[in-house]
C-alpha cells in the first residue's frame, strides 16, 4: 500500500512543504515535518522539498506502454440523428489540445443514420470519423455504446478520450473507464497539456464550486474526461478541411442490452430547456414571492428569453427545478443573462459565469454578483424592471 515518509536524517526543518500542502496536512514539530491523517498522498510536498526528504512510495503498478497511445478521441452525442452542440465544443477543444503536440483528433459516431454529419464533424475539427450505423443505435443505451467504444479504444489507442458531461456522457464514460482500468475526471471546465510530461491536466470544480482541482492520470491510458457543456468553444466550421471516414464493424452481440427504452416523454411545451436559451432572465431570493416572477416573465417574453432562478427561489417553491441555474441545477451560457435579486454566491456563479454578457440588478451594492457582472445596477428591481419593460416597448415602436 502507498505511504508517505519524512526522512528524519534529511529533513532540515525549513518548512517549505507546509504551505505547499493543499490539504494543510503538514506541520513542523521539533524542526521536522510531520504529516497528519489529512494527507491524501497528492505529492505536492514531495516536489516542494529541496532536500528530497519527503518520499511517497506507491506499490508496484502495471506499466501501460504509454508511448503507444496518441491522439484525442471524442465520443459524439446524438439525439434523433442530430449531433448535440456539446460534441462540436469538444471537437474545438480537442483541436486546440492537438495543436500542442501535433496529434490528431478523431470522433466516434454511433447512430441509426449518419446523413451528412461525418462531413460536418470533419469541418468542425475531426481528422477521422469512426462510424457505426444501426437501427438499434438510434437511442443511447449504456451497454452497446460502451462495448463498441471500448473495443475501438483498445484498437486505436487514443491518449485522450473526451465526452460531454451530459447525462449520456456521465452514464457512459465511468463504465468504459472502469472496464479499461484507467482514470476518468468528471465535469472538467478546463483542459491543458502539461508541457513537461505531455499528460492531460484536467481541471474541475468540486465542493460545490468552492474549489478548482487539477487532476492527472499519469500511469494509465487513455486519459478520460467528461467536459461540462457550454464551457469550451466550437471552432468555426471549415468546409475545406479534409478527413477520413472509417466504418466500425458490428456483430449482433455488440448490440445486446439488458436495458431497453420503453418510452421517451419530452418536456412539456413552455417548459423549455433553459440551456438552449439565448436570453435568460433569472430571479433569486430578492423576488420575494412566486407572483413576482410574472414581472420577470414579462421581460423575458419581450426579449424572447427564458426564466432562470437561483437555488433560493427553487427551494422556496417559487419556480420549478428545471429552471434552476447553478451547481446543483443547470449550467447555462446564454448571450445575455439578467440576474435579478440574485446575490451571486459561488454555487450560482459556476452555473452562469460563462454567459457572454451578464447584467445584474440588486439592492445590495455589496452583493457578490457585482464583482463579476458586466453591468450592474444598484436599486430595487420592482422599481427598475417596470421602467425597463416600458422603455423597451417605447423604443421598439
Amino acid at each position, binding site marked *: 500500500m502507498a505511504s508517505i515518509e519524512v526522512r528524519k536524517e534529511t529533513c532540515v526543518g525549513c518548512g517549505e512543504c507546509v504551505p505547499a500542502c493543499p*490539504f494543510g496536512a503538514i506541520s513542523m514539530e521539533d524542526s521536522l515535518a510531520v504529516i497528519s491523517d489529512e494527507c491524501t498522498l497528492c505529492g505536492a510536498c514531495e516536489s516542494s522539498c529541496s532536500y528530497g526528504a519527503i518520499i511517497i512510495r506507491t506499490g508496484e503498478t502495471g506499466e501501460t506502454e504509454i508511448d503507444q497511445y496518441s491522439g484525442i478521441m471524442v465520443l459524439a452525442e446524438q439525439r434523433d440523428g442530430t449531433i448535440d452542440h456539446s460534441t462540436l465544443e469538444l471537437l474545438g477543444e480537442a483541436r486546440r489540445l492537438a495543436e500542442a503536440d501535433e496529434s490528431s483528433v478523431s470522433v466516434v459516431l454511433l447512430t441509426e443514420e449518419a446523413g451528412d454529419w461525418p462531413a460536418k464533424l470533419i469541418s468542425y475539427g475531426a481528422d477521422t470519423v469512426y462510424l457505426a450505423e444501426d437501427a438499434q443505435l438510434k437511442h443511447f443505451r449504456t451497454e452497446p455504446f460502451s462495448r463498441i467504444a471500448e473495443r475501438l479504444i483498445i484498437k486505436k489507442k487514443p491518449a485522450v478520450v473526451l465526452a460531454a458531461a451530459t447525462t*449520456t456522457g456521465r452514464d457512459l464514460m465511468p*463504465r468504459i473507464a472502469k472496464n479499461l*482500468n484507467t482514470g476518468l475526471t*468528471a465535469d472538467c471546465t478546463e483542459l491543458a497539456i502539461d508541457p513537461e510530461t505531455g499528460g492531460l491536466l484536467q481541471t474541475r470544480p468540486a*465542493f460545490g464550486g*468552492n474549489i478548482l482541482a487539477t487532476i492527472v*492520470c499519469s500511469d494509465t491510458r487513455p486519459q478520460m474526461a467528461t467536459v461540462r457543456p457550454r464551457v469550451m468553444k466550437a471552432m468555426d466550421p471549415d468546409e475545406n478541411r479534409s478527413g477520413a471516414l472509417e466504418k466500425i464493424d458490428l456483430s449482433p452481440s455488440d448490440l445486446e442490452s439488458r436495458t431497453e427504452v420503453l418510452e*421517451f416523454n419530452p418536456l412539456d411545451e413552455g417548459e423549455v430547456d433553459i440551456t438552449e436559451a439565448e436570453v435568460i432572465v433569472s430571479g433569486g431570493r430578492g423576488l420575494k414571492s412566486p407572483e413576482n416572477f410574472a414581472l420577470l416573465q414579462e421581460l423575458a417574453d419581450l426579449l424572447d428569453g427564458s426564466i432562470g432562478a437561483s437555488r433560493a427561489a427553487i427551494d422556496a417553491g417559487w419556480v420549478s427545478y428545471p429552471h434552476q441555474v447553478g451547481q446543483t441545477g443547470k449550467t447555462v451560457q446564454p448571450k445575455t443573462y439578467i440576474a435579478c435579486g440574485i446575490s451571486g454566491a459561488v454555487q450560482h456563479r459556476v452555473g452562469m459565469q460563462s454567459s457572454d454578457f451578464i447584467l445584474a440588478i440588486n439592492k445590495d451594492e455589496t452583493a457578490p454578483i457585482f464583482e463579476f457582472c458586466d453591468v450592474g445596477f444598484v*436599486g430595487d428591481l420592482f422599481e427598475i424592471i417596470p421602467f425597463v419593460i416600458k422603455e423597451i416597448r417605447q423604443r421598439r415602436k
Partner: protein
Amino acid sequence: MRIVVAVKQVPDTADVRIDEERGTLIREGIPSILNPFDEYALEEAMRWRDELGGTVTVMTMGPPQAEAVLREAVSMGADEAVLLSDRAFAGADTWATSHTLAKAVEKMGNIDVVMTGKQAIDGDTAQTGPSIAASLDWPQVTFVGFVRELNQDSIIAERYIEGGCEVIRSSLPVVITMLKDANTPRLPSLRGKMKARKIEIPVWGREDLELPEDEVGLDGSPTRVVKITTPEIISNGEIHHGEPSVLAKLLVDSLLGREVE
C-alpha cells in the same frame, strides 16, 4: 428483494470555506452529513422493501467515523449496515472506490439491486454508481427520478435526461442512481433510533474483501489531484447607481445595444 444502498459521509459543502492565503479548505468545525442524494436512494430502497419484503443494507467506505452515517441510515429504517474501512483504502479515486464497493456487494451475495445517490456533494463526480455496475458487470440505470415497478425479474425506472424523461426497463440485478427530490425521505423513528444505537456494524477491510494492495486506495487509483485553487473572479463591470428610471434607460441601452450587434 435484497437491496444494498451505497452511501457516503460528506462535509456540508454549503459551509466549506477557503483559507485565502493558503488556498486550502477549512474543514475544522464543518459538520459531516449523510450525502443528501443518498437519502433519496435510501428512501426509494426502503419504499420497495416495505412493499415487497426483503432487506435494505447500507454500506459506506470511509474512515472509522463514517460509521455515523450508517447509524443514521439505520435510524431511518435500514435493516443492516456494513462499514468498509481500512487504512489501505485511503486516497481512493472513483475507480478504486467503486472497485471496493463492488467487491463488498459480491461478498454479500444474492443482491438484487444496488442503489446510490446520483452524486456526492463533495466530489460531484456521479461516477461511482456506473463504475460499480461496470465492476459487477451489471446493467445500470442512472439519473432516476422514480422507480415505477420492481419485481423479482425486472425494474422499470424513469430516467431524467436533457429534454425529457426516458422510461427504462432493466433486468435484475441492476445498479440504480437516484436524483435529488425523487421522493420524501422519512425521518428517523424512535424504534429506528434505538436499533441504530444497538446494532453491531461489521467492518470489512482489504483482506476481508480479498483485494490485492494495488487495487485499492491510492495505489489502485489511476487519477491524482495535483493542484487545488480557488476560482478566479474577474471584476471589471461598470456599476451604476441612481434613479430607477435612469438606471432602466441605461439597462435598455446595454441590452438593445447588444441586439443590434
